[in-house]
């Protein structure tokens, strides 16, 4: 250590004018226009970090490489000082000088504006932020300056190898990190970026150390040692990054901390789930999971927007970002569950798809994106037709009437900020029904439902035959979804009064409501004639679940005094019997983000329930058997 401290002392003494420069620069924040304490503080903090980084870069570039090229490293090597002490002493001196220079720059403002310092540190952690920024800035600048200087001052052929390796390494890191960047995970990306930066800096420093330790004053041998150590370490980091990325982007369903049900297959037992996975910070995993077998297919990390299952439940379509450029086209992926494979359809879409609809036979696929509605041929991936959207209108739903005709439901007008579920402000809205002739590429206005008062919610049946509209003031109406003709009033208790509803799998409307704390379910014919009313007793909000069997429907009932704590019930539509299935259970069919096509009676999704802790269970209404599905504990 004697040698180390001697080198440190010597190197600092050699460049003590750095402190004088820092002292001069420390008064600059007082000349920042505005003169507010906070502005001065942050100006001082930023300039101190930048000054320290610049000093580290300059001194790092001059310390060993320059000594070596000017033949002055021998002064140390002919003394009883270890190679490590020479290298570490020189770099430690620079590190110390940079940090002390930064402290000198911060002192005047710190003293003058001490109260602001204290306030910002307590509220915003200013001191910790500056310390972290300073540590990184000095470490990275010192490492980069030192190794780049060593490489170029050696004037050896290894520099050419360095440039080639740098290009290859950059490519490797880019390909390793790109999926994470596509996944839009700012926290994870920042943490990994900083960790990678720190690891690379350590690798750079180690390479500089290897040059001094193995080459000493021999620049050729030292250059070789530096080259080998540098690129072995950097490619090892690239390999680790690649492996870590693979792990990050490969979560299993069991890794999800809490599960959001995105959609469920209309037939079979596949569901689409999403959630934050353990050890992956803010990375949202998106998977398709087979409840029956436990198999799963993973969507890539860039999945976004709508999901649509094929009618037979054996495949699903979704959109992904494939480019970091926000304006670049999105891809549609078709995942087939039978073989676990996925196929990409390249599209001209430049925004996320808000809706994906499959034709009944799965041969065609229609998407609503921000600017257009497009139809693709699934087997070939070819764009068949595209229709520009009217930016003033809100597009609600697509239905394939035939392979050649796509029906489009749109709302007009709506305030720019409106959504389907929450249309703010007064006024009237209308729903336009438009048929898109795919081969002819023509749009034809079929019908309009006019004078809807501040529409709150809509429900379509799967075939696009019927439409339920919840209007302002409690009006609940059934419409013919082809002609726009109002068929019947389904109730007067509106959305605000807890009215919820939809269609059974046979196309009959069903509406639940709660008035004066009593819940009821109204079942109608397809023409809107009330067939039966089921009294549920005391109930807050009643939501419809799935049909675990034909003639049965699960309900989620929130108690009047405990809204949010859902209890699951089974309603037998034939006998009118209501049976409690369990507390704190919520049918996932009522919980899904993408509900069309609706799961068929008896499909697995109708027996799945979400719990408050984010887990999913399977409850067989017939036997009462409860089984944990995800996450498995």
């Amino acid at each position, binding site marked *: 250590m004697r040698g180390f401290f*001697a080198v440190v002392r*010597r190197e600092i003494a050699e460049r003590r004018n750095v402190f004088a420069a820092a002292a001069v620069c420390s008064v600059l924040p007082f000349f920042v226009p505005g003169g507010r304490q906070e502005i001065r503080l942050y100006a001082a903090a930023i300039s101190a970090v930048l000054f320290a980084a610049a000093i580290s870069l300059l001194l790092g570039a001059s310390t060993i490489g320059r000594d070596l090229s000017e033949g002055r490293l021998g002064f140390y090597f*002919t003394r009883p*000082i*270890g190679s490590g002490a020479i290298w570490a002493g020189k770099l430690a001196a620079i590190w110390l000088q940079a940090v002390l220079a930064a402290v000198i720059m911060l002192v005047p403002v710190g003293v003058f504006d001490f109260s602001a310092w204290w306030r910002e540190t307590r509220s915003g952690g200013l001191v910790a932020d500056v310390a972290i920024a300073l540590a990184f800035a000095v470490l990275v600048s010192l490492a980069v300056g030192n190794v780049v200087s060593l490489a170029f001052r050696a004037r050896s052929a290894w520099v050419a190898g360095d440039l080639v390796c740098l290009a290859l390494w950059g490519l490797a890191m880019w390909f390793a990190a790109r999926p994470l960047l596509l996944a839009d995970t700012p926290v994870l990306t920042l943490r990994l970026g900083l960790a990678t930066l720190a690891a690379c800096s350590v690798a750079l420093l180690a390479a500089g150390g290897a040059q001094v330790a*193995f080459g*000493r004053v021999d*620049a*050729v*041998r030292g250059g070789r040692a530096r080259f080998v150590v540098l690129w072995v370490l950097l490619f090892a980091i690239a390999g680790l990054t690649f492996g870590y990325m693979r792990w990050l982007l490969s979560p299993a369903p069991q890794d999800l901390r809490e599960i959001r049900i995105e959609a469920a297959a209309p037939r079979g037992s596949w569901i689409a789930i999403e959630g934050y996975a353990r050890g992956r910070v803010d990375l949202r995993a998106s998977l398709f999971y087979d409840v029956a077998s436990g198999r799963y297919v993973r969507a890539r990390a860039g999945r976004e927007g709508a999901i649509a299952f094929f009618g037979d439940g054996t495949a699903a379509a979704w959109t992904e970002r494939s480019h970091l450029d926000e304006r670049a086209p999105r891809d549609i992926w078709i995942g087939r569950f039978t073989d676990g494979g996925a196929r990409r359809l390249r599209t001209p879409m430049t925004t996320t798809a808000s809706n994906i609809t499959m034709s009944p036979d799965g041969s065609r696929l229609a998407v609503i994106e921000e600017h257009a509605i497009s139809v693709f041929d699934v087997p070939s991936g070819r764009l068949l037709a595209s229709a520009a959207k009217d930016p003033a209108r809100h597009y609600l739903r697509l239905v394939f009437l035939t392979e050649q005709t796509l029906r489009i439901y749109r709302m007009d007008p709506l305030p720019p900020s409106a959504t389907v579920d929450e249309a703010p402000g007064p006024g009237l809205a209308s729903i336009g029904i438009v048929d898109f002739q795919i081969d002819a590429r023509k749009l034809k206005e079929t019908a309009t439902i006019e004078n809807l008062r501040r529409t709150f919610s809509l429900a379509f049946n799967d075939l696009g035959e019927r439409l339920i509209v919840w209007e302002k003031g409690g009006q609940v109406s059934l419409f013919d979804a082809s002609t726009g003709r109002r068929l019947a009033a389904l109730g007067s208790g509106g959305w605000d009064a807890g009215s919820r509803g939809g269609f059974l799998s046979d196309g009959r409307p069903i509406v639940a409501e709660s008035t004066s704390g009593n819940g009821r379910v109204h079942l109608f014919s397809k023409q809107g004639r009330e067939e039966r009313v089921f009294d549920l007793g005391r109930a807050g909000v009643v939501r419809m679940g799935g049909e675990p069997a034909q003639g049965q429907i699960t309900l989620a009932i929130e108690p009047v005094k405990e809204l949010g704590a859902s209890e699951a019930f089974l309603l037998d539509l034939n006998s009118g019997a209501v049976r409690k299935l369990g507390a704190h259970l919520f049918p996932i069919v009522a919980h899904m983000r993408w509900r069309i096509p609706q799961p068929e009676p008896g499909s697995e999704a109708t027996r799945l329930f979400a719990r408050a802790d984010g887990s999913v269970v399977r409850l067989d209404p017939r036997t009462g058997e409860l089984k944990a599905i995800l996450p498995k504990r």
Partner: protein
Amino acid sequence: MRDDAFPAALQGVTVRYGRVTVCEGVTLSVPRAEVYALLGRNGAGKSSLLRCLLGSQKPDAGRALLFGRDAWKERTDLMARVGVVPEEPDAPPAMTARQISDFCRRLYPRWDEKAVAERFARFAVPSDTPFARLSKGQKGEVMLAVALGHSPDLLVLDDPTLGLDVVARRALYEELIGELADRGTTVFVTTHDLAGIEGIATRVGIVKNGRLILDEETETLKSRFRRIRYGNRMTETRTAYGTELDAFEAVRVKVRGWGVDAVVSNFDEASFEHFRAIDGISDAEATAMSLEEIFMALGADAEAVRPAPDGAGQTEGAS
């Protein structure tokens, strides 16, 4: 090998820079209290050997030993017993002579600050002038003073008189002689100043094209080398030239207008008397040779055949 019997030794040292071999299989030993002068032209490989000996460069083959220990592996410990005067004074430019001494004081347990200060005074070196602003001679004197500051057991000098004027060169040799007289320090020196080192070196090695072609005590070397000049003519009984020097190992023979000028490497008086008696040999005289003349006669002055390698650390071309 005893630890201190041979303070410096090279065992089959080979140094390569890429495909260029600078030194090959160099073996030599420097006995204690000897002054070993390693001679050779620029690019002969002297500086590379010196760097290996000081543990600053790892040989591609062979070992460099200091006090019987591997110089590369144990450099840090060994340097405490070695003083080094580099070819190019390499102290940090901003350091003054006093600061250099102060820096070294912390590193050497045996540091004699007073003796160093006295040397600075004797050399008339300004103690508070930055090293970069000292003259070439003063820089050399500072380096010598510092190299002797811890009373080293081995003093290594890499062409210490390069670029020095006569006065500075003399001062350096006087200091060296004084040190040798006082302490019997072992010295290993590479130099081009053959005349200057001749009176000091007790042993000489000559490197040519990376190989050690001679390694011998100076006195022995000088006693066996002679320059012989003689007239040479035919007589009735002598019908051919060229056999008259058969009793000697002729290193160089030049036929000139007045006769023959030869250098022999195994001179002895008896053989010379016999040579003089050969029919047709006239005016034969044998003269002693200086180290420089021997160096020239051996052809060690011939251009090194290998180019100095690029990026070979310190200035290889000025060894």
